[in-house]
């Protein structure tokens, strides 16, 4: 098992200045998630370096940066997906509604219900469409009757914009859907357990522009109820869907700002170089 979050010895009453290495404002009022001085190591490799950032309520924040910059690694810290990787060590403090998510007492399964995740490749379970969505609510005991579960499945599929396309074939396998439909099925599965935060790791990179547009529209709608963190290689997508953008570079969080500012007038020259395509 990886080494989990040693309790910091530093004096908590005098925290280090927040975001001291990052350009822009990393904090928000009433953060949903607050990460402070987060470091991630894969063995000897220092993959994430002293990252401070807040995730706000009802916001979409995009993480951008070149491959290997650590954006996915950091994303996976937010619901402890890195726990499953041998040799991965996470240091620093990450809180969800003020509660330390690396607390030893914390139930990781509960955490991942509150902080859901959608992956790059749609990964429906080899089960029916219905069972894919019902899986989470069943293990979390969220429905007391079959009809309650039916309602929850329908609500989730409607929310994910998939209901009309699948309502007549709920018992067919989820893997039989198109790529875009499978991804929306995965989103329906994620929201079926009433998460508060949804992490998306390049959710559209395997999809065509039409399916991408549907997912982006969905992200915009979901923002009303959830906080969404999206990792994307498409800068246009980051610009379209997010309100804030964070730029990572070789494990450092270089710049955070309003998306409009990042794409019209980035402050840091690395950010400017990346978004304008000036990387050699």
């Amino acid at each position: 098992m990886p080494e989990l979050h040693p309790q910091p010895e530093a004096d908590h009453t005098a925290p280090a200045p927040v975001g001291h290495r990052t350009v822009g404002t990393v904090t928000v009022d009433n953060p949903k998630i607050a990460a402070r001085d987060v470091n991630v190591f894969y063995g000897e490799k220092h993959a994430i370096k002293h990252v401070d950032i807040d995730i706000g309520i009802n916001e979409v924040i995009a993480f951008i940066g070149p491959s290997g910059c650590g954006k996915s690694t950091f994303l996976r810290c937010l619901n402890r997906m890195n726990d499953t990787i041998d040799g991965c060590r996470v240091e620093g403090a990450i809180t969800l509604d003020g509660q330390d998510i690396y607390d030893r007492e914390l139930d990781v399964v509960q955490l991942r219900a509150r902080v859901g995740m959608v992956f790059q490749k749609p990964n429906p379970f080899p089960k029916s469409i219905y069972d894919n969505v019902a899986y989470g609510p069943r293990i979390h005991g969220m429905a007391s009757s079959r009809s309650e579960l039916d309602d929850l499945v329908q609500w989730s599929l409607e929310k994910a914009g998939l209901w009309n396309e699948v309502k007549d074939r709920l018992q067919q396998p989820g893997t039989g859907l198109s790529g875009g439909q499978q991804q929306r099925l995965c989103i329906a599965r994620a929201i079926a357990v009433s998460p508060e935060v949804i992490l998306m790791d390049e959710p559209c990179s395997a999809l065509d522009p039409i399916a991408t547009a549907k997912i982006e529209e969905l992200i915009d709608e979901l923002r009303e109820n959830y906080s969404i963190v999206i990792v994307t290689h498409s800068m246009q997508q980051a610009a379209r869907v997010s309100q804030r953008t964070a730029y990572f570079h070789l494990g450092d969080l270089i710049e955070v700002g309003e998306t409009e500012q990042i794409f019209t007038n980035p402050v840091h020259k690395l950010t400017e170089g990346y978004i304008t395509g000036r990387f050699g």
Partner: protein
Amino acid sequence: MSVSTDGHTVKRFDQQLASLRSLVLEMGGLVEDQINRAVQALQDEDIAAAREVVARDHVVNGFDVRADEEVVNLLALRQPVGSDLRMVLSMAKTVTDLERIGDEAQKIARMVTQIYDGNSAPNARLLRDVANMARLAANMLHGALDALARMDVDKAVEIACGDEELDSEFQSALRRLVTFMMEDPRTIGHAIDVLFMIKALERIGDHSKNIAEYVVYLVKGKDVRHVTIETLAAQGRNGS
């Protein structure tokens, strides 16, 4: 992976941006020449030269259309962001102002043909302010284009702040024209022609100021249109 200082990974993008920029600067040079020739025609009482200026405005308009096409292509095909976006936008706006400056130069040339077409030449006193304002306006345009070519914020701020001088020259010239007209109503015809000319020169100053302001936006990402002169001046040497 490192930031490249010599341009985009996609070289064609650099070429397109550079070509837009040089097209705009070339247009700027042409428009500058239009003003100078119109004013020279006034001084030389040369109707033929003035007609040439009028005729050449379609070349200016051609630049306007070509530059707009390049802007649309860049936006559609490259989706520029950051400093590239600011470059494309400021070029698009500069082109519009240059086209209008071209129109003002054409207006002056038209007035020249009108003034010297009649029986009586205008009193030299009436024309004195035109020469003076023309010098100021041409300097402003030249300075704004210079600042654009060198991406020089300090120069741009200096030019934008200098528009006040031209504006006050216009006000004084206007007062003098009114005095002439009251003294001798026979000058009214020519005085009105001169009024149109100095108004055109005043507008050239305004457009040049706009171009200088786009340079500040292009380089620093700050929109300094419609701000006080103090705020504008603060963008210069010591401004952040």
